[in-house]
């Protein structure tokens, strides 16, 4: 197997709040291979955006980062801000959720590209800058006639294409796309997903695709990591995870998703936990239909189940489960007070 482009090990991120530290990302590990797209899914507040920003060193000052983000033999967590800054752009890219707020309304699209390329590749001639920009815009479906237009002259979907083109013009080997289609309409979303799915073919870029939409993961990703309360509870190839989900949260989330083939409503009781005081042991146990006695007692270990890695005591390891630990957990009544 090829070497991963990015290898994250036991990454942790805390935020300071008035009520105490929030453990937004709590010991997350994953690898990303060249040209691979990893979908990172979870509900709001599960830490997926924080993880995406943390990998790029783009967290606010109040945040604390620990663990390893290995990129080409360097640990970005311990690297100096200057070193990480130099990598951002030519090596590490980011595509944001709201394209309009990320483009300068006073600058032409051409000027955005000129600024980007001059900063990171100072040797390029004006002619080369224009050629490279127009070529990458073309790959995103922006005609050359629009190269000197201003951001307001473009529709929402076109602006998102321009943002993607600006991230790709520097040919980064790793890009974080944070909910890139959330603000877009369904037809435009489908166009953007198509573009991102073509990335690996045309640019050989590895993508961390953050979304809350499982349908998009099924559409655009090779592998998926499901996050709950700061942990990746299950990861594996998309086809396997969707066909045979092993973690109860993955199963319940898939069942709760309303799709065109939905004939009955299903939901997960309760609400995602407060990360200032997360539940003990497995964080999903208060909402889990298969919770056992061991679940609130001990943190589950990552276990390989087929091609997937799952953090759930249902899959063992059985020698770590204490005697009687696999008995069903006596349910405390979930009152509506705790419901969403």
């Amino acid at each position: 197997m090829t070497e991963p482009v990015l290898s994250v090990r036991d990454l942790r991120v805390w935020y300071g709040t008035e009520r105490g530290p929030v453990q937004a990302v709590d010991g997350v590990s994953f690898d990303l291979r060249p040209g691979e797209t990893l979908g990172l899914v979870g509900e709001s507040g599960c830490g997926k955006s924080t993880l995406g920003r943390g990998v790029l060193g783009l967290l606010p000052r109040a945040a604390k980062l620990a663990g390893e983000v290995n990129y080409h033999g360097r640990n970005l967590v311990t690297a100096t801000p200057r070193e990480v800054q130099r990598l951002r752009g030519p090596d590490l890219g980011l595509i944001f959720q709201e394209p309009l707020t990320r483009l300068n309304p006073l600058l032409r699209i051409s000027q955005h590209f000129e600024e980007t390329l001059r900063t990171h590749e100072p040797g390029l001639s004006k002619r080369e800058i224009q050629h490279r920009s127009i070529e990458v815009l073309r790959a995103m479906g922006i005609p050359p006639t629009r190269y000197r237009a201003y951001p307001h002259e473009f529709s929402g979907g076109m602006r998102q294409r321009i943002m993607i083109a600006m991230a790709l013009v520097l040919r980064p080997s790793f890009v974080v796309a944070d909910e890139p289609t959330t603000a877009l309409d369904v037809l435009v979303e489908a166009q953007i997903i198509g573009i991102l799915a073509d990335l690996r073919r045309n640019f050989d870029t590895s993508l961390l695709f953050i979304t809350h939409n499982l349908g998009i993961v099924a559409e655009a990703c090779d592998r998926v990591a499901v996050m709950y309360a700061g942990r990746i509870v299950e990861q594996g190839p998309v086809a396997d995870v969707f066909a045979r989900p092993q973690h109860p949260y993955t199963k319940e989330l898939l069942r709760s998703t309303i799709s065109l083939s939905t004939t009955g409503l299903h939901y997960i009781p309760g609400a995602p936990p407060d990360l200032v005081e997360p539940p003990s042991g497995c964080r999903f146990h208060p909402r889990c239909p298969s919770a056992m006695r061991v679940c609130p007692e001990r943190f589950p270990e990552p276990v390989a189940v087929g091609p997937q890695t799952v953090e759930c005591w249902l899959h063992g390891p059985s020698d770590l489960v204490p005697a009687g630990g696999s008995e069903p957990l006596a349910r405390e009544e979930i009152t509506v007070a705790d419901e969403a």
Partner: protein
Amino acid sequence: MPTKPESSVSVEDAARAPLMEIRDLNVHYELRGSALARLVGGEGETVKAVDGVNLVLERGEVLGLVGESGSGKTTLGRALLGLVRPTSGHIGYGSHDLASLAQRQLRPLRRQLQMVFQDPHAALNPSMEVSTAVAHPLRIHGLVNSKAEGRSRAAEALERVGLSPAEQFLDKLPAELSGGQKQRAVIARAIICGPELLVADEPISMLDMSVRAKILELMLDLRADLDLTYVYITHDLATAKFFCDRVAIMYLGRIVEIGPTEEIFADPKHPYTQALLRAVPDLDPDRRVPRDLPRGEIPDAAAPPHGCSFHPRCPYAFEPCGWEARDLRAMFERRWLALGEDAYAKEGPLVGEIDEVDPNQELVRLRAGRHASELVSLLSEARADDPDEPLWRGVEGIEQDGGTVVVRFREGVDPALGSVNDIDVACHLHNPDLRPT
């Protein structure tokens, strides 16, 4: 697990009079370009947010207004409650016409007509306790005499929407509630006056996946218990399919297709509806969203396309769909997108500033000077390169007139809603007089 309830519009219901009848409803917004134009009072642009909508809302049904952003679905929903004043048209409700009623007379009717907003975080006053917020409509309409009575009515409403025991919630502030709980409180506030109609504008789109179904289920329960009629505004076809009895697909202020949910989802008639359905990402990783989806995006509502608004994106567009100068520009842009920078450098100057071509013209004059014959041959080259491009079906003739090249388009016709079985669709493909043979 609750399953989809049977459509409630049964035989006996059919005898009842409809709840609302909307005729030729228009909601237009005037745009004035600059401060000077405003002073001089010159002709501004008009955005037709709702453009000639006809609709009958039956009692007890769930009608979905489905469309992308800018389709006018929210404006239409708000107009039904008198929250947006229509420019013209009628909204028949009982013996009233909501479109022409003064605010003073509308206000008592709002007891029966209520709204659930998209963002529960913004729909509740952050400094107002839940009991006060939920009982607020009662106070506004003078339906309670004392604070204590309002509080007990609020408690009943909270219990009704599943926030029980209500005592736990009455004195809380919105910030202490989760997203789902807030949306329940918003629904409690909407039902407290005993309404007939709830307009729900994307009520679950801001909520987490794992709790969305819970709110939909609550709304279905309430409909059965309180005999409600819903207008469900959404861009999400999957929930519309599950939740609605009938759906109306909207595009640029118009209803382009309307009919029973099952039939529209099984056999959509309008090319736009067909495309929307194919574009929804599915949970099955083996099923891919097709790549041949309509190009582009919803056009500028201030200058909608000629003829059928969807024709610039429609793969099946043909002669009468409303071809115009802008479509020629778009064709060249697509050509240069495919051929690249060099082709653009060569052909761009020849075609000239098509950016400045007036919209809505069935005839374009391209000034090419002594290169006129080259431009004519470029046009035929473009046609030969992509003969399946729908634009060419609309081009009637290309002529050289001295230094100008004249491109003539076929006359466009505005499609009107017409019936195909149980579905009404506004598309020339379903018009027997125009349909290609």
